[in-house]
C-alpha cells in the first residue's frame, strides 16, 4: 500500500511544511489587519468606522477562493507585482483579518463597561485606555476563538493551491496524479489525512497552552 514510502513521506513533509508556513505567516498578517480594524471600529472617526465595516462585510460574504482569484488577477493591475506566495499570503491574511477583527470586537464588547469608565475617570486618553486597559483584557477573552481561527486557517490554507502554492493538499494531489503512478491512492490519502490531523492536534495543544497561561495571569 505504501509504495515508495520514503519518497511519499518526503513529499508530504515538504507539503506540511509549506502549509504550516503559509498558515503562520498569513495568521500574522490577519492579526495585524484585525487589530487595525478593531481600532477603526471603536474610533470616534466616522469614516474609519464605515471603512472597517465595509471591509468586514466584504470579506465575510465573499468565498475565499473568489478572493484569491480576484487578487491573483487584480493585484498586478494596481501595480502590485507579486508571486503566488504573495497572493496566497495577502489573500488569506486579508480574508482572515476580517474574522479576527470581528472576534476582537466581540472581545471588547465582553469587557464590563466599568473598565472603560474607570480608565476614563483616571484621565486616560482614548488611545491609552484602549492600549493599557481594554485591549489587553479583550485579547485574553478572545484567545479561545482566536485559536479556533488559527485552526480553521490551517484548513483554509489549502485553497492557496488555486494560485499555485504547493501546500499539503496540492502535494497529495500531485502524488496521486504522479505520471509514473509510483504511489498508491490509499497510501497518499492516509498520509495526507494523518498530516492534517497532526498539524491540527499540535496547534490545538498550543492554543490550549496559551489559554491556560492567559487564564493563569488573570
Amino acid at each position: 500500500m505504501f509504495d515508495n514510502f520514503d519518497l511519499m513521506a518526503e513529499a508530504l513533509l515538504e507539503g506540511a511544511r509549506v502549509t504550516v508556513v503559509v498558515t503562520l505567516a498569513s495568521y500574522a498578517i490577519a492579526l495585524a489587519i484585525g487589530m487595525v480594524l478593531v481600532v477603526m471600529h471603536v474610533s470616534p472617526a466616522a469614516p474609519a468606522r464605515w471603512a472597517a465595516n465595509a471591509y468586514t462585510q466584504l470579506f465575510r460574504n465573499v468565498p475565499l477562493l473568489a478572493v484569491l482569484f480576484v487578487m491573483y488577477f487584480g493585484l498586478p493591475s494596481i501595480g502590485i507585482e507579486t508571486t503566488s506566495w504573495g497572493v496566497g499570503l495577502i489573500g488569506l491574511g486579508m480574508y482572515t483579518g476580517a474574522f479576527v477583527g470581528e472576534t476582537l470586537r466581540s472581545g471588547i464588547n465582553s469587557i464590563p463597561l466599568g473598565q472603560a469608565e474607570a480608565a476614563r475617570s483616571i484621565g486616560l486618553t482614548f488611545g491609552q485606555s484602549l492600549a493599557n486597559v481594554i485591549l489587553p483584557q479583550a485579547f485574553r477573552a478572545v484567545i479561545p476563538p482566536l485559536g479556533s481561527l488559527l485552526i480553521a486557517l490551517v484548513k483554509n490554507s489549502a485553497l492557496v493551491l488555486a494560485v499555485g502554492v504547493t501546500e499539503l493538499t496540492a502535494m497529495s494531489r500531485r502524488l496521486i496524479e504522479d505520471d509514473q503512478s509510483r504511489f498508491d491512492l490509499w497510501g497518499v490519502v492516509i498520509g495526507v489525512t494523518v498530516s492534517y490531523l497532526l498539524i491540527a492536534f499540535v496547534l490545538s495543544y498550543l492554543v490550549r497552552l496559551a489559554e491556560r497561561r492567559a487564564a493563569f495571569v488573570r
Partner: protein
Amino acid sequence: MTRQNESTVLFDALGPKGRQRSLIASVVSGVVIVGLLAWAAAGLASNNFFEASRWINPLDALVVETTWIPAILDTLLAFALGSLLAIVLGVVIGFGRISRFLPTRAASTVYVQFFRSLPLVLLIWISFTIDGYFGFTADTLGWSGDARRLTFLVLGLGIYNGAILAEILRAGVAALPPGQAMAGYAVGLSHGQVQRLIVLPQVLRNMLPAVLAQLVILLKDTSLGYVITYPELLHSANIIGRDYGNSFLQALVIAALIYFVLAYALSKVVVYAERRLRKKTAAPKAAAQIEAGVTSGQSVGI
C-alpha cells in the same frame, strides 16, 4: 443599534476640544481611505479595468441566460442539497455524541474530530478521486457529468458541515437546563422520547442562529465545486472570462459580487432569526450567549 453603546464606551461626550480633535481624525481618516481607494482605482483605470465594453461583454443577455443564471441555480442547488445533508448528519451525529450507548458515542466523536480537521477542498477532491475505486462509480448509478460532480460536492459539503453542525447542536444540548430532561423523565417519558420531544425541539430553536450562520459558510463553500469543475458561479466566471479574454478580471469580480449578494441576504436572515428568537424564547440570554460563543469559535469557515 446596540453598537452605539460600544463605540462610546471608550470616550465621554466630547467637549469642544475633543470634538475638534475627532473632526480632525475623521477628516484625516477619510482622506486616507479615499486616497487608498483612489490609488487602487487609478491603477485599475490605467489598465482599462473600467472600460465599458469589458463589463458589457460578459453581461451580454445571451451569456446571462446561458451561463450566469444556470451558474447561480447550480450554486443554489448545491447549497440546498448540501444543507439538507449537513443538517440530517448534524442531528444524527450530534445526538450520537451524547448517546448513552458507548460505541455510538465513540463513533460520533471520531467522525466529528476526523472531518473537522480536514480541509473541505481535500474532502471533495478525494471523494471525487476515489470514485470508481470500489468497482463501481457514480456513473453506474446513472449519475454522470455534472450530476456526478454535484454528488461529490454535496457529499463533501454535507459530511464536513455535518460534523460542525453536530458540535453546535451538542453545545446547545449542554446549555439546556438539565431540569428540562428531568421533568420529562419525571412524567414517565423514555430516554428516546425525552430527546425527541423535549430536548431536540428546544435545541434546534435555540441554536437556529448558529446553524444558519454555518449555512452562510456552506453557501460560500459551494465555490469549492471549482476544483472538481462543477459549473457553479466561480467556475462559470472562469469560463466566461476565458471566452472574453479581456474581461477575465471583470467576470471574477461579477461572480464575487453575486456571492456577496447571496451570502449577505442569507446573513440578514440569520439576524432576523436571532431577533425573533430573543423575543420568543424563555431563556433568551442563555441562547444568545451560546450563540455568541459558538459563532465566534465555530463558524469560522472558508
